């Protein structure tokens, strides 16, 4: 058994203090220790982007970061994006309306990547959206639905009061 340390961090607005093995990845910590299984692992070597989460507002591959490195961080996972149990975030709504997902396995990483991107670039071009998700692999959609969803979401978010944004949409 490896060495253990205690980490304190905030995930989706909830504070945790957890004892973790030093070699435990952030992705495995979120999934198996906190039970937040919405963050998916597609390659475990940092290429596919499915495990992308927001760490202090910035997109990070949770398979390439250790849980102990997240001490003191404020993390948003896919479970923290929707504003409530019965409402989806405008980005999630746009994904559903534009068929931006099929099997849905890459979707959590797409959503977190695009949350960060749309916060920094509220009026992107199609080419900028393509660049933004070029580090996230999707095998189902051919990306077109995802790109349409991102552009649609940008429009929806521009029309929305910034204060109504949920946790993941806030500025760091």
């Amino acid at each position, binding site marked *: *058994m*490896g060495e253990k340390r205690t980490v304190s961090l905030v995930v989706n607005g909830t504070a945790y203090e957890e004892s973790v093995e030093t070699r435990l990845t952030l992705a495995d910590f979120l999934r198996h220790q906190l039970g937040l299984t*919405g963050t998916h692992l597609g390659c475990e070597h940092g290429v596919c982007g499915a495990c992308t989460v927001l760490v202090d507002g910035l997109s990070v591959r949770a398979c390439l970061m250790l849980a102990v490195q997240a001490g003191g961080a404020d993390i948003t996972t896919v479970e923290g994006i929707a504003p409530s149990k019965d409402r989806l975030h405008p980005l999630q709504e746009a994904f559903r309306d534009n068929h931006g997902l099929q*099997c849905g396995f*890459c979707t959590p990483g797409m959503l977190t990547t695009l949350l960060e991107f749309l916060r920094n670039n509220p009026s992107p071009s199609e080419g900028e959206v393509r660049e933004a998700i070029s580090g996230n692999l999707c095998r189902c959609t*051919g*990306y*077109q639905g995802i*790109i349409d969803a991102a552009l649609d979401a940008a429009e929806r978010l521009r029309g929305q009061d910034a204060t109504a944004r949920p946790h993941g949409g806030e500025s760091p």
Partner: protein
Amino acid sequence: MSRAVFGESVKRVEDPALLRGEARFIDDISLPSMVEAAFVRSPHAHAGIRGIDAGSAMALPGVHAVLTIDDLRPYLETEFLVVGLPSSSYQQDRNRPALAGDEVVYVGEPIAVVIAEDRYIAEDAAQLVVVDYDPLPAASDCRDALAEGAPRVHQDAKDNLLAEFNMGYGDIDAAFASAAHIYAESITQHRGGSHSIECRGAIASHDPGTDQLTLWVSSQMPHSTLRVLVDMLGRDENQMRVVTPDIGGGFGPKLVVYQEDVVVSVAAMIVGRPVKWIEDRREHFIATTQERDQYWEVEIAVDGEARILGLRGSIIHDHGAYTARGINLPQNSAESFPGPYEVPAFQMNTKLALTNKVPVTPVRGAGHPQAAFTIERLMDRVARELGLDRAEVRRRNLIQAQDMPYTRPLKTRGGLAVVLDSGDYPKSQEDSLARAGWDQFPARQLAARADGRYIGIGLANFVKGTGRGPFEQVTVRIGTSGRVHVYTGGTAIGQGTKTMLAQIVAEQLGGDMENVTVTTGDTAATALGIGTSNSRLTVVAGTSAHVAAGKVADKALQIAAHVLDAPVEDLEIDGTAIHVKDRPGRISNVRVELGALAHAMAGTPGYTLPGGMGPGLEATENVILDSKTFASGTAVVEVEVDVETGGVKILNYVLAHDCGRIINPMIVDGQAIGGTAHGIGNALYEWMGYDENGQPLTTNLADYLLVTATEMPRIDLIHHQSPSPLNPLGVKGVGECGVVPAPGAIISAVEDALAPFGVHIDRAPISPPQILALITQGRAP
């Protein structure tokens, strides 16, 4: 009025849970006291095994067991997975053992499994298992494997020919003897893996009290998995259940029953705790089946007007080291080679070569893209040789709409006739060319060349057999809650199966999709099941669902007529109730809830059932649809080739496709575009490399390139809807269609762009270095 949902782009029922991160994929399942598995795999393409020393691994804290085939044998009736589809053409049976015994025949073959407290410890321990190997010569290239004196893939074999078959019709010798022109091509084709973003995984749990074994598995075919486990473990069906959770993509290889499925099942019994195994991406590259190499030697005979007289040739197909599915993949290739064209005489010989590589089984497209690529390369060749427009050559040879249904004198693997059931292929080509500006392209090309830019255009037509039978079971049941439950043996792998079935059922049962729950891929919920493959579910499960829902609706209306004392023809189902239809000037409020009808039909002790009808409010259907229904279409692609780097950029991509009647346009678009992305990868990027010793060279997603958003063009879709006459919905499959024409159209366009260099391309995929080499060759004096 009941809401119409069939034919509408209704939102998918699958999406909310997926978008919230609340879906449950295999690795999201955690059972009490569960332990985890890691496999010890062969690093050699071919080796004998002298011994296995698990001492150091067992000594690691947290390790519960290290199991080899010797440990599994007491639990197994047979240690082999016997899964090959029937065929008379096998020369040898090559079934996978659950774990390798004294010989390993591909890199990645599982030899032992470590069961430990968690995956981290299991992987550590797997590294500590010492296997004493005796390396043996390996057969890597499938052509070399068939040569005299080649290293044998299996020590006990006399050669590496797994199977051989001939397929054909017509007088091929006369066709070639009378031909004005004969052209030959040698074509090299390669396709890679599925690379669903979710890898494989399985969890087994055994309850010693009831002797019940449950396997959750990320599989396209849970009922097949159950049948293999029943055979191998010698268990009663009632003691086994196979369940598929949410599945993060399938694309073919998840239809295979794998060694790991068997091993975790037995391991759960041995260690007495639930066992989970989650494949990592490297394992997906070396241990999950893939498509790979085909070498085609073909000739086309045409008359003076470029009309096809005959096609003949041979295929050598890389089968891998074992039969994990059958001879079906190259069979599809050979059978579909004539494509949408009139071919009066046809003869193909196909050889399946064993190689020391992971087994080959279908990946999205399943041999059809290779066939389409070959016939389309030949069409381009004929056009070039005869100085004709490439589209014109095809136009002269396409099967005409008035000739539908068109019977081709070939037999499917099940001995059924190949009948192209409906479609207007010339219109598909014509509309696609018009949309892509084919006739104006030469002017665009000239202008571009004047600017030093090399652009090209290409096209490819295709047909794709879909909806392979014989059936898929569907039960439709209205529960006493009033909810409509749909159960099918098919699995949902991202293609929108639940939405599709909910639409079909809701159409006849009140139009309220929110009131429909669909359960897929659970052997405890559906007695019979075949599963997801071959773009089949909408056709076969859709039809069973349609017929079953109709029967339930009829029965519900008859019971309601009895309960409401009203004529059946005055009643309709709307939402969750049946009510008396409104008439002009009279709005009715006479109604009965579906749940109340289900309550009545559930029976009450001592009382007769209403209307003298049979109990329950449900129907189970296994509608037999033996014949495939053929989807079709055309891709026209415009590219620019950078002659300094060899890079290819897709400028425009038109795809016309015809999958019969469309149930959900949004989902059909998604399938067509997604399939196209896969086809673009097969044309330009995806290469599963091996060296001459059978060592895989591309085992991560940095070396093996999947198409990303920046390479993917926007796809310009054209929909045609030629209803299939073979099923009551008029539907055809769409999931694999986009991939089929992509390599043919793209390579045609690249070749066209490089025409000034006299470049001819005889392979797919083609990489920038290969393109540069061809340009250099063309520039040489």
